[in-house]
């Protein structure tokens, strides 16, 4: 990733944000992201995002867990070391259902959380550039990416017109890096490059 130039605007009301997103997108601006302090239902659709496939990953992890449980228990008790428990069959499926179920849930949950962290680049000591710290408190921060064709002054005026407040131009790193939040660190020590 690289350092890019953005125009950011702060929104105080959902009722203002939604029409603004619509207007900005219709005008052809590239919305980098909208940062919100809590999930706003429908905003992802408004931004033209596809649904996440995380639940499909969860299903695949789940059946992996089921398969692991049944194949391992089956192998251990019916093949590798057969033990006679009161004359019951070595392959006694009903008695294995509890563990099969538990491993299904375990694999699915752990796998999904890891996938979630991978996709969203979340891990301890991961640092990312923040447009406005208020986006984790009470406002919705929209960041529009400046491209070669963007007329900055026009974009700022447009965003203000759409209801945004404290509109600014900011240069930000779009990727992530390892760093501490109590220190000013930049990704790979790179200096802000001209866009």
């Amino acid at each position: 990733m690289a350092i890019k130039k953005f125009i950011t605007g702060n929104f105080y009301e959902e009722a203002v944000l939604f029409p603004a997103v619509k207007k900005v997108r219709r005008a052809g601006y590239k919305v980098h992201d909208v940062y919100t302090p809590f999930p706003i239902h429908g905003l992802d659709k408004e931004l033209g995002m596809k649904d996440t496939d995380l639940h499909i990953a969860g299903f695949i992890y789940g059946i992996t867990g089921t398969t692991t449980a049944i194949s391992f228990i089956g192998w251990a008790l019916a093949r590798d070391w057969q033990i006679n428990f009161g004359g019951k069959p070595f392959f006694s499926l009903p008695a294995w259902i509890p563990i099969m179920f538990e491993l299904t849930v375990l694999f699915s949950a752990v796998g999904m959380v890891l996938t979630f962290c991978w996709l969203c680049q979340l891990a301890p000591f991961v640092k990312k550039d923040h447009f406005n710290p208020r986006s984790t408190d009470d406002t919705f921060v929209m960041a529009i990416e400046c491209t070669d064709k963007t007329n900055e002054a026009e974009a700022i005026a447009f965003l203000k017109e759409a209801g945004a407040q404290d509109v600014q131009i900011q240069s930000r790193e779009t990727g992530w890096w390892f760093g501490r939040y109590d220190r000013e660190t930049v990704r790979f020590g790179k200096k802000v490059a001209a866009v």
Partner: protein
Amino acid sequence: MSLNRYESQVRGPLVEGSKDYHQITEDICRPVEATPSKLWWVGFIISIGLLIFGVVSVTMEVMYGTGQWNLNKTIGWGWDITNFVWWVGIGHAGTLISAILLLFRQGWRTGVNRAAEAMTIFAVMCAGQFPIWHMGRVWNAFFVMPYPNTRGPLWVNFNSPLLWDVFAISTYFTVSLLFWYCGLLPDLATLRDRAKLKWRKLFYGAASFGWTGSTKHWQRHEALSLVLAGLSTPLVLSVHTIVSFDFATSVIPGWHTTIFPPYFVAGAVFSGFAMVQTLLLITRKVLGLEEYITMEHIDVMNKVIVLTGSIVGIAYLTELFIAWYSHVEYEWFAFRENRVNLSSPYGWSYYLMMGCNVLSPQIFWFKKMRRNLLVTFFMSILVNIGMWFERFVIIVTSIYRDYLPSSWSTYYTPTIWEIGFYMGTFGLFFTCYFLFSKFFPVIAIAEIKHILKRSGDNFKEQMEKDENESLEAFEHANAHH
């Protein structure tokens, strides 16, 4: 856009006082950012004291063996397994609140879920201690894991409910922890961005995993929460079902009952909610969060308590009836002589259980009682005592007289070290809870903000006004037809 979604005016607001998003952040972060009160220190030091008592007790047990606990050949499971089931039961409310109520779209869960989930995790940690230290030769505890070993390899018995328990409880702990922490990420990011002190920036910066609140991340976060809730719902039911299998699959009179799984699950939810009440009544008072954990929350939780308490009551009576109706001599003897008979050595515990779990919660049929803090607090303690005795009744009264009268136990009482171990888990539980309430937001900040415009006091008022206005306009327009 779900902002204008209709919200019933029958239900009271879930956030009291005229709040906006920033005020919510301020209110919930305040206890985390302030220096701890004297009361906090007193509680914390008492908890540490109890924890030390527990560590000493466990050390004694490891040195001398489980005989240190007055356990013998007849009563092999005394206080320790009673405590184990009790703690696991308490650990059920958190996931019930966070998972099942999420699936049912119950808005009131948002005020209480974070603390309840934390309670679940700490309660399961406490529960896990008992079977581990009860093993006696605890240095061999890893034998429960199926790993290639030099004894054959001899695998663990996958057909045994005790092994199912190992899998169920470790899975439950892991999934609850993940669920809880994923929910914490956005709130930790809020704390990080507010942090003024260096160590806070470092700690919350690392703990929030670099969360930014991006729309795509929120979309995935929502999907993740929903699927985890879907997975946790059957999981929470399975865990206590499997714990009940520890008893139900045996042939001990009093344990050999098919009703156990639903009966245990209802009891778990019952005791879990009682513990949530105990903790939250103190938390909201001490941290000044009465506007977020409102009377409305306490009222609905008391409704859950009276419902589950009554289910448990039906289960007790069904069990008793079937013991008689089945004409199984041993089963009926266990019930008639070891439990119902008040003059038998442990008869008192059966009536204590009945009184605390079945009769006393019936007081919550009255709204006035449900909304009385003192009554609620007293009842929550009573239910916890009652549910402890339920497990004690099931375990001890079933095994202290077995098939052979010559091996009937003398009166079993716990030793100081057995009590110390139990107290020690209280120490562990409250130490964890005190630390949690100091360093983490006890209420899910993002989730409260999410429901604010539907269930907030000021917004509900506005909604009602709008509704009446539109009703009047409608009447006015249609008056002449």
